[in-house]
């Protein structure tokens, strides 16, 4: 939806795909309004590369925006798009960058090569048991030295992902048993015996840096930091706040301003080194002691880009649209401004309104939404695919995301107050097929707003 808006804003022609289940979504309506029925293609699945490329060929498209998910971080798809006989422009980083930064181990090694702090532990898969044991033992003594009360070391299958093949150990004596279990599991499951050994960090804050680079090797630009520490139990983000910390209003046990600066500088250094050429997000964790560690790089535009845009001013003007910037740069334009022109003003809060039950492990709720409205304000923008004038059935194929609300205030206090105001005036109602009332995370958001950015 926001991509369509960006295209309209840039005066570009577009076509848009949707599945049968998504036929009533907002982006379909918007595309129909802006581009007419010819700009819509119904496909059977968002995951079928052949179908997407067939649509692109049929429409005579010259460039392809992969959206936020599925294909955006798939370097194979990016490569296919740019290297097929009828090549398209890929709106995103070049596939080599996606491949290199998509690999966490590679990213970690790249970072360490540049002296960027990363989570203490091994930076390559370990195949040698005595070596792994030595690293684990070092990690325990290292943490003890830093007065960590209960040192914990993580053993991960290097080929794994999504939480599979990860175990923690609390002392070196249980290392050998766990190591062997993980190694055998990894060998069976992923066909690779490599194991990573890392420190486990508790109570951290999750920071992000928004980066923009052009295709001509120009100096990478950043659009400030975000704090995404309010998450569901499944580590899904629920509230994002920009900037990452507000040392002006809150007291931190460490030098928060310096941490933000360090994080930005390190991110830019890596972008420079990797030859980054699009929009991306550098994810960091900050320990309670104020140490930042690079976690990973998201080589795509993220849903929460709006909250960084809302506090950014280019040449003093607001209304920054990062998706439009991304498309412009991907098509070969230069940004036309430098880091000096980018300034930041105020605090942005982004709420993710989701039909789910926070008290019950964030279980998704599926049903029909009968009423949905909010009071518009100049400091508020809401992005939603849910229509406000007619009932809407939530498709069960995807997460029940309802809306993104981005709120701006001149400082944290004002932003928080406006956020609560928005939540108070929000009307949201519906029932599912068994008559159960709509469940949403509004209360959860309200509760979390109280302590935003407190660390």
């Amino acid at each position, binding site marked *: 939806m926001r991509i369509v808006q960006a295209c309209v804003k840039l005066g570009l022609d577009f076509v848009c795909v949707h599945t049968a289940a998504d036929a009533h979504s907002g982006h379909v309506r918007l595309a129909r309004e802006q581009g007419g029925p010819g700009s819509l293609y119904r496909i059977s699945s968002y*995951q*079928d*590369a*052949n179908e997407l490329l067939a649509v692109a060929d049929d429409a005579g498209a010259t460039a392809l925006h992969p959206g936020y998910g599925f294909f955006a971080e798939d370097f*194979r798809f990016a*490569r*296919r798009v740019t*290297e*097929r*006989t009828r090549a398209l422009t890929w709106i995103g980083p070049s596939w080599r960058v996606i491949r290199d930064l998509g690999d966490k181990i590679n990213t970690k*090694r790249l970072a*360490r*090569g540049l002296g960027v*702090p*990363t989570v*203490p*532990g*091994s*930076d*390559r898969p370990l*195949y*040698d048991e005595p070596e792994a044991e030595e*690293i684990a033992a*070092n*990690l325990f*003594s*290292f943490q003890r*030295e830093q007065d960590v009360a209960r040192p914990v070391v993580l053993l991960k299958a290097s080929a794994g992902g999504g939480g599979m093949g990860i175990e923690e150990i609390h002392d070196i004596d249980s290392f050998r048993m766990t190591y062997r279990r993980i190694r055998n599991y990894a060998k069976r499951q992923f*066909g690779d015996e490599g194991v990573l050994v890392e*420190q486990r960090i508790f109570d951290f804050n999750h920071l992000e840096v928004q980066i923009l680079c052009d295709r001509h090797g120009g100096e990478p630009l950043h659009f400030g930091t975000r704090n995404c520490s309010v998450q569901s139990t499944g580590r899904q983000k629920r509230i994002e706040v920009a900037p990452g910390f507000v040392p002006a209003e809150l007291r931190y046990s460490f030098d928060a301003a310096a941490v933000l600066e360090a994080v930005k500088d390190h991110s830019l250094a890596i972008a420079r080194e990797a030859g980054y050429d699009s929009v991306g997000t550098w994810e960091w964790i900050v320990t309670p002691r104020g140490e930042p560690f690079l976690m990973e790089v998201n080589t795509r535009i993220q849903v929460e880009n709006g909250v960084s845009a809302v506090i950014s001013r280019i040449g003093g003007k607001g209304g920054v649209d990062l998706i439009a910037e991304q498309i412009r740069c991907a098509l070969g334009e230069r940004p036309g401004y430098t880091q000096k022109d980018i300034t930041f003003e105020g605090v942005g809060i982004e709420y993710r309104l989701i039909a789910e039950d926070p008290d019950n492990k964030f279980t998704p709720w599926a049903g029909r939404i009968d009423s949905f409205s909010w009071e518009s304000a100049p400091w508020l923008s809401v992005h939603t695919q849910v229509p406000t004038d007619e009932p809407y059935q939530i498709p069960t194929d995807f997460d029940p995301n309802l809306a993104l609300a981005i709120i701006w205030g001149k400082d944290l206090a004002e932003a928080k107050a406006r956020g609560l105001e928005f939540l108070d005036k929000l009307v949201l109602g519906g029932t599912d097929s068994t008559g159960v009332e709509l469940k949403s995370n509004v209360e959860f958001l309200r509760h979390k707003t109280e302590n935003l950015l407190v660390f």
Partner: protein
Amino acid sequence: MDIEKRIQSLAARLKYIQDIFAEREDANIELLHSKLKDFTDNGGAMSAQEAARQVEALEDLYAFLEKKLERELTPMDKVRIVRHPQRICLKDILENVYDNYTEIGGEGEYNIDPSVLIARAYITRRVGGKVYNQPIMVIGQEKGHGEEFRNGGSVKPWGNAKAQHYMQVAETENIPIHTYVFTPGAYPLEDYPGAAQQIARNLYEMAGLKVPVIAVFSEGGSGGAEAIGLADVRLMLSHGYYSVISPEGAAAIEGRLRGGQRASAELIETCARRLKITADDNRTMGYVDRVIQEPPLGARPEHYDFFKVLRSEVIRATDEVVLNVRGWKFFRAMTLSAQRNKRNASAEDIYVRWTLSAGARDRLVWRRYQRFRRMSRHAYIDNSPLTKKVERLAREAGWSVYSFFKYDFFRKHKKKFTHMLEEIGSEFQVVRDKAAVPLRWARRALAPGRAAVCSEEAGKSLTELSCWDKGSCDTPGVYVSPQAREDRVLTCTNAETHGCKDLWAPDLFGDFAGVCPTCGHHFRMEYQWYLHNVFDYGSIFEFSRSVESGNPLDYDGLSAKLEKAKAETGLKSACVTFEARIKHVNVICATLVGTFRGGSVGAAEGEKFVRAAERARKKHYPFIAYVHGTAGIRIQEGVNGVIQMPRCTMAVRRYIEAGGLYIVVYDTNSYAGPVASFLGCSPYQFAIRSANIGFAGPGVIKETTGLDIPPNYHVAHQALSRGHIHGIWDRRDVRANLNQALQTMGGRNLYYR
């Protein structure tokens, strides 16, 4: 009545002649037919004397015409002769050639495989008033005289297993083996043990048998014949044939016939001629040692004189073999060789004891290897100049000397020395540890600050870039398959059942190594991929490049086909032999390339394989046979091809017995001869998931046995469950698995052990 009997026998002879010459009934046969008819019509009216005279005249005429017809026999006529039910069979031979015998294991139909006959037989010699009884193990295919249960001499795998067993028995008992080959080919079953598997075992067994083996060929069809045909002396009956494939089979391949179609008689006839299958042809090419002359139009059970000849030939052959390897032989050997050219000389006049001493046994095996090594030298092209050939021989000799000193001479002593050093070292370690206890205690007491420094170091190692030394320096080269350059989308064959996504060719053939990431289906990959992705970068060094496939039989059309294949693949034969490294371990690898004439094995391929095995033996390197696909023996080379089965098997056995490690890796389709011999005999055989392994393809099985085979009969998993192969590898893991195999398997005498 005497005359009637004689007339009956004449009628039988006429019937036989008519059978043999089938369609081509020419004037001679007409004449015989009418004469006999005249006589039988008028026979009643004649006096007895007159009748006797006329019958005699008739018999003379028959004998004359039979001789005349004999001169005009075509190869196909000979094939019909050996297949005729009246042809002598093994039972006839046992009764008439040997003095006493007992069949082992079964009576007639009640036998594990009635088409194999095994007997303990005796030959009795009377020399100088003494009687000598000499036991022999007789092994052969039994066709019988047309009995259905004999299966036409087509041996099932378990029949060959039985033969193998009794070869071992003969070895234990130290008695010679006489084998009689009467088979159109092996029965192509894959059920345990598979035909290919068992024939390979037989060949491997015979390659190292330490007793004299004499083979007599009457009907020698391909693999079935090889299963018992690897011998010190190979005799052949003059009307027999010995070939890589039956003429009908060759015609079916030549005419590209599909199931159900029949080849025309002319085509079969030409194929039989082209394949050079007769005894004289094989004698000329050197694949049999002597031809035993049969009576005109082939031996039948009533030709008692022939059995005498056969007896004296087999006895002489056994004597020769024994005397050649024995210490005590002087005069007898001379007499024997002098006798060879004399008529009516009986080999039984001189007594030769057939048991061998230990030294003689080793010489026997060595001589057998040398004999086969020398065979089929004429059948491939080696265009390298004389200087190169001399250089190669010199280098081989150099390697022999070097490896003798390095491995056989020095290593023994070095081992002793290192063992001693290790002992001393570990004793010293214990003493030093004891002595160091107070020292360590003192150091800890004096320098508490050192610990902090250490931990700082450890902290650095946790947060700074580590050296990825392992694995980064020995990565294999990068090879981009030409298939990965096309912009197309492939659908996995298992998409229906496994829900695989469609694959883009550059992804599939570039990053995924031609393997579907969802279900593991292996797409076809060319052999170059393995050369570059399995072996260390730039480590491949090809040798015996000059050996080239030729056309030894001047088979029509083969030369053109070979030219085409050579131009298309840039290779000179279907076998590529090279030295390479896998994670720093030197190996020798022989690759059978499926794109060169179907990966079929002829004289050049066999020669290269043998040279590779010998090189591996001399250098003490592991030896890997990678089969990118083989359709079998190259039939257009006839016996020149089929002889590679025993040749290569012997080379492999010699290599393995020298303490080598011989690993076979099958990819894609691997069938027939090579699998049934030098590949199938390896104790370490592995298949890549895409492999099909077997003796005969599904079409051939249907054609020859009439059985409907189950689906996926030949896939790697079936081969694994039959015990033919010993593991199935994923293509992406070949390098790692080979490395693992090199480290853990076999080979007590490898250079890196």
